[in-house]
């Protein structure tokens, strides 16, 4: 199953993936139990000459217990899943950690306009730089992404970072991630945004520390 997910290079990706597996094992067990019972019963209790079905209405507590007790087990497993989920959610979406660097990503039909704050580290100043569809970050640093949209709702999706966040016009929504490994990863749009939705794609470049410094020096020649 792990081969089905794109490679995880996110600090919180492992949390999401292991929650997925927890749910997979629980639901997998229920799947095997229920489908197995159905199959066994269909075979074992198929119509046979001279054999009458048992009259079991299942309304009394004694009989209904056979479904109520498994129901209770479902409740406990559900709560376990949500307790684990609450921790993971709080860590990812509950609060945005102070970022080592931040970028502004403005979605529009059909591009990601990425604005870097430049060496002064502040957006909205003279040294800001806009690049379309290219997001450069160093590995091992927390990146804050300020998401905006110029027109319709888009969704900023980094599959390898296990990150997704809708970009809503009229709002500024902050997301964050920390990449663990250098590489080149895609940034597809994950919310239907018009005829160019398919193919609306950007690139995330995760650099090593040295490569990132080099890239910064190239972009902002004098400091």
């Amino acid at each position, binding site marked *: 199953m792990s081969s089905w997910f794109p490679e995880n290079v996110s600090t919180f990706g492992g*949390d*999401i993936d292991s*929650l997925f597996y927890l749910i997979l094992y629980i639901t997998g067990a229920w799947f095997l139990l*229920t489908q197995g*019972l159905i199959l066994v019963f269909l075979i074992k209790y198929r119509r046979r000459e001279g054999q009458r*079905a048992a009259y079991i*209405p299942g309304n009394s507590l004694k009989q209904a217990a056979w479904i109520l007790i498994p129901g209770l087990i479902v409740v406990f497993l*559900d709560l376990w899943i949500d307790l684990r989920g609450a921790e993971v959610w709080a860590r990812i*979406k509950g609060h945005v950690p102070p970022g080592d660097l931040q970028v502004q990503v403005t979605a529009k039909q059909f591009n990601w306009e990425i604005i870097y704050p430049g060496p002064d580290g502040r957006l909205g100043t003279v040294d800001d730089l806009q690049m379309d569809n290219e997001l450069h970050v160093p590995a091992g640093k927390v990146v804050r992404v300020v998401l905006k949209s110029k027109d319709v709702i888009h969704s900023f999706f980094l599959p390898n970072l296990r990150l997704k966040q809708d970009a809503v016009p009229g709002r500024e929504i902050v997301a964050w991630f920390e990449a663990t490994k250098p590489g080149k990863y895609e940034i597809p749009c994950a919310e239907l945004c018009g005829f160019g*939705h398919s193919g609306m794609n950007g690139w995330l470049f995760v650099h090593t520390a040295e490569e990132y410094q080099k890239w910064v020096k190239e972009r902002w020649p004098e400091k």
Partner: protein
Amino acid sequence: MKIFSTDHKTIAKQYLSLGLFWAIVGGLLTHLMRWQLAYPDTEVPGWGFIAPDFYNMVVTMHGTIMVFFVAMPILLAAFGNFLIPLMIGAQDMAFPRLNRLSFWVFALASAVLLASFFVPGGAASAGWTGYPPLSAKAEYTGVNWGLNLWLLALALEFVSFLMGGINFLTTTINLRAPGMTFFRLPLIVWMQITAAVLFMLSVGPLIAGAVMLLMDRVVGTTFYLPEGGGQPLLWQHLFWFFGHPEVYVILLPGLGIVLEIMPVFSRKPIFGYRPIIYSTIAAGMLSFIVWAHHQFLSGMDPRLAMPFSITTIVISVPFALIVFAMIATLWRASISFPTPMLFAIGTLSIFIIGGLTGIFNGSAPVDIYIHDTYFVVAHFHYTLFSATFFAGFAGLYYWFPKMFGHMMNEILGKIHFWLTFIFFNAVFIPMHFVGLGGMMRRIANPMQYDFLQPLQPINVFITVAAIFLLLSQIPFVINFLWSLFRGRVAERNPRQANTLEWTALSPPLHDNFERVPVVYRSPYEYSSPESPEDWLPQDQPPAVAQS
């Protein structure tokens, strides 16, 4: 058959016909979609090239048609209209003329939706969910009248089903035959009225929201446009406040069909009649407080995610109970496997998978990854297809004799079942994996993304299986049409079932019953110790005590 009939049975068949027509249209749209996904930018056989904006229209209309013009008319309007008066012992619905009006309003809605394909700019293309601002300004999609007509068609459809809901509820409350207490009603009637209540109470906010969207498009208001002070997220809340109960509006009648069929072919009471009713009511109430699980990543306050995750996961409990009850019905039963029973079991098996994948989607952190991927598409096809098609077919094969006076062909029926079951799973099991691989929804060309290219062979496999799934419906079409005229003439009660509709002629008289039935017992007294037979009809007077 009068075309402007007020007879609930005729109206049911009218809804069924229109629903089946739309099912064919909706199914053919999948052919376009799946071909484009498997072989992007090639000519679809029988059609031609699919441009990206046309692809969006196909996706949008497929969803809209299947939910509002197939599932609702067949499961609720057709089965509900046909069965409710018969099963409660009434001559017709409480308001027969309102019933007739409701069908013709639905027919008008259908005409409006059909027209939307042919206006300049084409049909709606903002998804069946129609999120603004994409849907609020014509320039964002290039679609102008198509979206306005889409909104109008939905509004008319809502009006039609509101009228139907009033009829279903009033009829069930007031027109029950003597002895038919609420707790002697067949479960499908409980399911229909619960679905009606859910629909009636949840559709209002969407009607309001749709009026607002139409006004934004046509009158220049800015409900959803941020440049005018509006809120795009407002639509999402209004839509999903309805949208979530809506899926149970579709599911419950489907489950009801299974709950009727299983006891008859198990010769055993449905297990847990009362727990099932209480679970259904609980699920219905819960369905009003889960809606924002569709909006975990929408930009709404992240603190809302956990409460909605909890309510979402809790709603799995009543449905788990119903599933367990169905399985328990098979325990120590005496099971035969005619076509209706095959489809009923198929519904159960497939619904279980759909319900289980719902757990993944309902967990907010996991949803961060799987939201808007094909994993979600796989999930809702398992739940919706099982309810609409497997249960719908089960119901059609089961009640065809009562509706049309002929039996359907068993061999064709079994072929139809096995082909549908195999190819349905062949299409939608792999879809989970494509979704886990990250493939986004509503994209026309997966090859535009490097990370999706390794998944493409699976997309091709899904498409081939989908084409076979469509072709697998041919035995049903042949069987249905042939049996209407040449099927073996049906007796009143070919399966020896207990519920009241089987005491009427096949098909029933205009006023349904020769004499007003009197009800003495619950619907599921199969293999009862009170009877030497393995069935005991609801209207059979109790045996006089032996002295």
